């Protein structure tokens, strides 16, 4: 009984146990001895155990409170140390928490749908070229839907746009054409009405629509009797059959859903539909992936052409966040490195302070404080610093988030939620605790390993440092310098990559070209003559506006995504798997004049080319296929090898330009004259003053037809900024982190050198007394600085090379061992190191031997 009781006493803090364990056991033994009844003895024993359970935690709390009181007193006394330490921690923890908040929103938070982990994306991808994927061909999807057993619901969608008719001006709206399984897959019920039926999602089916909640509120005042009423759009009138619940938006920012009316027997090579599914409860996405890959292989074997693309299932969130993932991982790594530097600095600060406190520690030891107690004291101090730093860091992060989001020029997808949740809170708290333990451990370990005798011996004299301590400090600062250089190089690579993206030659003056999307009422301007009349009238009237130099219409505004089509040059047939895509761009006359793209051979399109199978190619295409310069007159056909599309005769060669998005694989640009089959709705206008002509353009459009709505009005410059925002974001944030890291490391380096000089004041004094010149002393300090900085440089360069290798796929036309980066970053690094070393060196050379020796 007593043995067990003694074991239970281990629940007490060590100091208490050392002091009272024996007494406690004795008292219990006395009581048990004085009681003869076994029942009462058992009661006494249980009572004693209960006493431990109640009192032991209280004792721990009392010790902690005493340590904390002492630590707070100490930290208040050493204000500058406390401020420096908590400031550096706040920066480190703030940066890490900020980045984690973003990572949480993008990578961790479940999508805002019920049981979102069961939502998957289904696609076909080209194993030879991973860039082709994320879509399915409709007939393949229909076959798959009939056979797959993994899904509760499965559906496809294609996004599009329309405009809702309104007396005050039509309102553009993003919509999705969806198959009947699409909306049920998200696991939400309609707020009103119902989803689409299989009978509605067929070619030429009934014109029905489902509203998004915000549209329902905005346009219909949330009228509950809306179901069955008509929705008047520029693409015709739809009968409203349902309303989605508040907050539901998929695909991104979509506000209206209509049935997809595709032919299940259409071509199996048209890829523009995306598919989503809800897994059955007992099926993993891994199992589903296996089933879909197998079924898709069967389907492809039964049909020709078999393009060999593979069916695939991935968690929907992974597909949605794929574009952000590498950047988030990079930023997390950068923040972790910054935090490591901050921790190393604080560690160093506490190490120095611990040596300075050797006397205090010795006195407390002499007064009976155990080593355990002293370590505990140091850890408590660390925890308090960590908590203050953590709170300040969380505050900094909350300030930083809006600033960071202000770097995003586009509207982010609605599934992203950047608010702080429990996970962010837990991260910040955990990080504060972990970091404070990390940097408190070093001085504590140091303290523990030094004997009391040593400490007492040291305490009498001026502050010294053991060689072990010094090595530790030097190792810390070398690592710190190396990490700072690594971050600097990483930021430089990111900046160079951004400049390569944003600074690439576009072929046109992006700032003077205004672009916009026009929404015509499709029922009044169907393809064909009516559309041609409208486009011609718009061209004529808009180009006559003052300030407008030239206008053109196109199917693809430059810097937006383009329609890629397979092509064949006459006489050079290739099998399907070797064919590549070119940008298929339909334009009106005036397009090249507006972009100021010269026609280098042949001629530009005129009105006479309307509807003719003519073609203008870009110079790269002409040089690749017709290096001898005889491109004009040759013929090109679009589509897979066996398509019956007509041959197009090349009538001109235009200068090269960036069509398609900034970072898209550069494809050849093939321009076609517009025809009755195409409705041109993208307008580009060249003008010296985009801001001032815009109201005139709008007024003229209204005068021509007040139902024409404008949307996505941007200069090409703005489009380029929007297209490069992620690169800019990454460059700005990593540069901020790198600058902070450099400043922290410089501060740390300065502190280490200054401390080393202060330790050697006596030695320097002796040397100078013995005749050493200031130059010798300077050499001594500088050589130490150079050794440390050199080690940091070498390690940092290695780190930079590793970083370059790791992020090579994220770099745009920048080598991972980019020469500029590997010259500029080390240069900045060395300059900073030299600057940090100046003050300590001067202090060393100004040591007065008399004063230095008087310390003895």
């Amino acid at each position: 009984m007593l043995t067990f009781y003694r074991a239970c006493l281990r629940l007490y803090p060590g100091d208490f146990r050392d002091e009272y364990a024996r007494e406690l056991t004795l008292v219990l033994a006395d009581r048990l001895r004085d009681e003869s009844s076994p029942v009462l003895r058992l009661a006494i024993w249980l009572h004693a155990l209960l006493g431990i359970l109640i009192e032991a935690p209280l004792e721990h709390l009392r010790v902690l409170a005493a340590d904390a009181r002492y630590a707070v007193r100490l930290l208040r006394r050493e204000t500058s140390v406390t401020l420096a330490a908590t400031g550096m921690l706040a920066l480190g923890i703030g940066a890490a928490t900020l980045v984690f908040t973003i990572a949480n929103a993008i990578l961790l938070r479940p999508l805002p749908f019920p049981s979102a982990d069961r939502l998957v994306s289904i696609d076909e991808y080209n194993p030879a070229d991973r860039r082709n994927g994320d879509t399915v061909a409709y007939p393949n999807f229909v076959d798959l839907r009939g056979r797959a057993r993994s899904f509760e619901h499965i559906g496809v969608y294609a996004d599009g746009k329309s405009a809702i008719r309104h007396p005050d001006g039509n309102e553009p709206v993003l919509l999705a054409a969806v198959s009947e399984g699409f909306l049920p897959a998200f696991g939400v019920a309609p707020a009103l009405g119902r989803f689409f039926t299989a009978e509605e999602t067929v070619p030429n089916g009934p014109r029905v629509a489902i509203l998004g909640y915000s549209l329902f509120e905005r346009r219909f005042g949330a009228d509950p009797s809306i179901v069955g009423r008509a929705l008047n759009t520029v693409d015709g009138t739809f009968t409203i059959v349902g309303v989605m619940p508040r907050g539901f938006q998929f695909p991104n920012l979509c506000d209206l859903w209509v049935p997809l009316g595709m032919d299940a027997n259409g071509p199996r090579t048209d890829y523009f539909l995306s598919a989503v599914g809800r897994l059955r409860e007992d099926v993993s996405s891994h199992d589903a992936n296996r089933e879909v890959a197998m079924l898709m292989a069967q389907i492809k074997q039964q049909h020709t052409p078999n393009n060999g693309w593979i069916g695939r299932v991935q968690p929907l969130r992974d597909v949605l966040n794929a574009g952000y993932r590498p950047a988030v991982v990079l930023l997390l790594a950068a923040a972790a490195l910054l935090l490591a530097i901050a921790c190393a600095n604080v560690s160093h600060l506490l190490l120095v302070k611990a040596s300075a406190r050797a006397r205090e520690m010795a006195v407390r030891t002499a007064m009976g404080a155990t080593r355990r107690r002293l370590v505990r004291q140091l850890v408590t101090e660390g925890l308090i610093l960590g908590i203050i730093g953590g709170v300040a860091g969380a505050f900094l992060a909350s300030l930083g988030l809006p600033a960071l989001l202000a770097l995003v020029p586009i509207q982010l997808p609605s599934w992203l939620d950047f608010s702080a949740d429990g996970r962010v809170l837990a991260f910040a708290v955990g990080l504060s605790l972990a970091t404070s333990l990390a940097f408190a451990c070093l001085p504590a370990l140091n303290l523990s390993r030094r004997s009391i005798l040593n400490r007492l011996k040291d305490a009498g004299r001026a502050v010294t440092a053991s060689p072990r301590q010094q090595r530790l400090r030097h190792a810390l600062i070398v690592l710190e310098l190396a990490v700072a250089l690594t971050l600097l190089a990483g930021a430089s690579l990111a900046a160079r990559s951004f400049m390569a993206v944003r600074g690439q030659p576009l072929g046109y003056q992006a700032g003077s070209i205004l672009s916009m999307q026009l929404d015509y009422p499709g029922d009044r301007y169907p393809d064909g003559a009516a559309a041609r009349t409208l486009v011609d009238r718009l061209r004529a009237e808009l180009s006559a506006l003052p300030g407008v130099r030239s206008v053109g219409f196109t199917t693809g505004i430059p810097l937006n995504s383009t329609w890629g089509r397979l092509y064949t040059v006459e006489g050079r047939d290739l099998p399907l798997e070797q064919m590549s895509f070119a940008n298929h761009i339909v334009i009106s006359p005036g397009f090249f004049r507006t972009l100021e793209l010269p026609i280098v051979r042949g001629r530009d399109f005129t009105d006479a080319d309307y509807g003719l199978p003519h073609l203008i190619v870009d110079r790269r295409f002409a040089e690749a296929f017709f290096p001898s310069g005889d491109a004009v007159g040759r013929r090109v056909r679009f589509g897979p090898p066996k398509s019956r599309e007509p041959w197009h005769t090349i009538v001109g060669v235009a200068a090269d330009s960036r069509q398609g998005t900034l970072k898209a694989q550069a494809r050849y640009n093939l321009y076609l004259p517009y025809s009755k089959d195409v409705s041109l709705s993208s307008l580009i206008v060249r003008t010296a003053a985009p801001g001032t002509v815009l109201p005139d353009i709008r007024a003229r459009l209204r005068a021509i037809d007040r139902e024409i709505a404008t949307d996505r009005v941007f200069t090409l410059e703005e489009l380029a900024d929007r297209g490069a925002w992620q690169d800019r974001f990454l460059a700005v944030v990593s540069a901020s982190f790198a600058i902070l890291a450099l400043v922290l490391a410089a501060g740390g380096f300065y502190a280490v050198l200054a401390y080393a000089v202060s330790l050697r004041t006596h030695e320097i004094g002796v040397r100078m007394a013995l005749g050493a010149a200031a130059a010798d002393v300077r050499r001594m300090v500088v050589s130490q600085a150079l050794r440390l900085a050199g080690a940091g440089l070498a390690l940092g360069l290695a780190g930079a090379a590793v970083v370059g290798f790791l992020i090579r796929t994220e770099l745009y036309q920048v080598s991972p061992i980019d020469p500029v980066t590997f010259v500029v970053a080390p240069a900045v690094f060395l300059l900073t190191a030299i600057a940090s070393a100046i003050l300590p060196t001067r202090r060393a050379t100004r040591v007065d031997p008399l004063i230095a020796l008087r310390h003895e």
Partner: protein
Amino acid sequence: MRTFALSRDTFHILVALADRDRHGYSIMQEVSARTGGSVRLSPSTLYSAIKRLLEEGLIEELAERPDPAHDDERRRYYRLTKAGRKAAAAEAAHLEKLLADARSSGLLPKRS
């Protein structure tokens, strides 16, 4: 109104030490006897209270044993300090005042 400055257990321990110096078990027995067995301290409660009383300077640990003849040399003895005596007396006076108030208001029968 003043709140109690001493907890019940602490007060009992101080009272137990008022007439003579005692070791832990003796304190425990004395408290139990004085309260007719209604207050029984566990060893843990006792020594947590002793530790705090020592820290606050209300009791002290004796270097020498009070009565070598009856002393158990294994044990530590405690004695009330001046401050401890004052605190206990103040507490007792306060309790007395409370008692008198209760009597005069008729809550308790008046003493004959």
